[in-house]
């Protein structure tokens, strides 16, 4: 598998790849993974704030996509369809974690204990996420602010501000109405504005 799509590969339409996937061709799915893995991972990472969890959730999302690719009818783009899977997987996971951890999910001391050094899904066993990524103070404040949002509010704000998705695409990805998306955006922005006022006003 190649990490970057060559121009020839880029010419291959998404729909063709999807059709080949539906015919059971795993190499076509590989290509779709190459195209979207970074964006998918980034989106999940910004929601869960833990590289290992984001890695696993991205893997889970792609596996689910592969298993259900035959049900993809092409009414939306593959990416929107994929996003729906990603959102379902991630929001479910966040809800379960919130129930289990009672809101302590971003306590660093807990995260360290939870990381299994023998886990096969650790991308780089020699470096923990927070060691590899020198987070700036701003980044920490943003992460902290986002963590105070509900999973649904996190999803809409990230899809809108990072992915530049349209309301209808977000609605499709989240399985709700456009009005709900707009309403969630309203409250998510209000909350983030209150929490990050000092940050964005002083930059």
């Amino acid at each position, binding site marked *: *598998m190649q990490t970057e799509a060559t121009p020839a590969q880029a010419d291959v339409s998404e729909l063709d790849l999807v059709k080949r996937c539906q015919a059971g061709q795993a190499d076509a799915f590989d290509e779709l993974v190459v195209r979207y893995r970074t964006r998918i991972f980034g989106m999940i990472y910004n929601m869960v704030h833990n590289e290992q969890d984001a890695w696993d959730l991205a893997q889970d999302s792609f596996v689910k996509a592969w298993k259900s690719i035959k049900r993809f009818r092409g009414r939306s783009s593959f990416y929107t369809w994929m996003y729906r899977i990603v959102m379902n997987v991630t929001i479910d996971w966040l809800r379960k974690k919130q129930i289990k951890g009672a809101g302590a999910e971003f306590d660093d001391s807990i995260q360290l204990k939870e990381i299994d050094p023998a886990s096969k899904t650790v991308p780089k066993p020699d470096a923990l996420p927070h060691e590899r990524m020198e987070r700036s103070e701003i980044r920490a404040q943003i992460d902290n602010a986002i963590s105070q949002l509900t999973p649904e509010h996190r999803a809409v704000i990230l899809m809108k501000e990072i992915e530049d998705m349209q309301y209808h695409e977000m609605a499709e990805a989240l399985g709700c109405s456009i009005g709900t998306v707009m309403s969630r955006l309203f409250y998510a922005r209000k909350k983030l504005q209150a929490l990050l006022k000092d940050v964005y006003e002083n930059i």
Partner: protein
Amino acid sequence: MKTFEEKWTAWLDGQLTGKELVEFEASLSDRAAAEAEKRAAHQLGALLKRELGAETLTNEEFFSHQLRERIAREDTVPSRSGTVSSWWTIPRLFWTGATSLALFLICTFVVVKEKNPAGQSDSLTQVLRMQLDPSTGPNATLTIFEAKEDRVTVLWTEGLQSLPADYAAK
């Protein structure tokens, strides 16, 4: 009919146009404060994009490799589990349930019957016949009639030449 939140969001994102835009802006009590909030929202958006938008996946090759392995593994497992799960269709579940229930009823009937053998059945009158010791009479028979309802037991003997001493009632 859009709610205020929906209109506000659309206004921030530049999605309100025409009459809707004019009406919404006219409805704002403090236009200057609203404009300031709009600017703040845009600043927030820019900050998020700058800080969070650069998130990259390290070890992309390993990610794809691991995914391929997992898919290959799960592709073989579902074919087995798929056979199992496809067997449990709703009609089959129904028939399995019905068969289990029937078996249970049969077993229950047998067990209950065992607990109440013929000699102690619920019939109103039971009759027991037996052949007596030939020494007491070659054709001697004993018949017992037991009427549960009347709490009566009748012993009917025939062909006895004499009543053995150990047969005597005490």
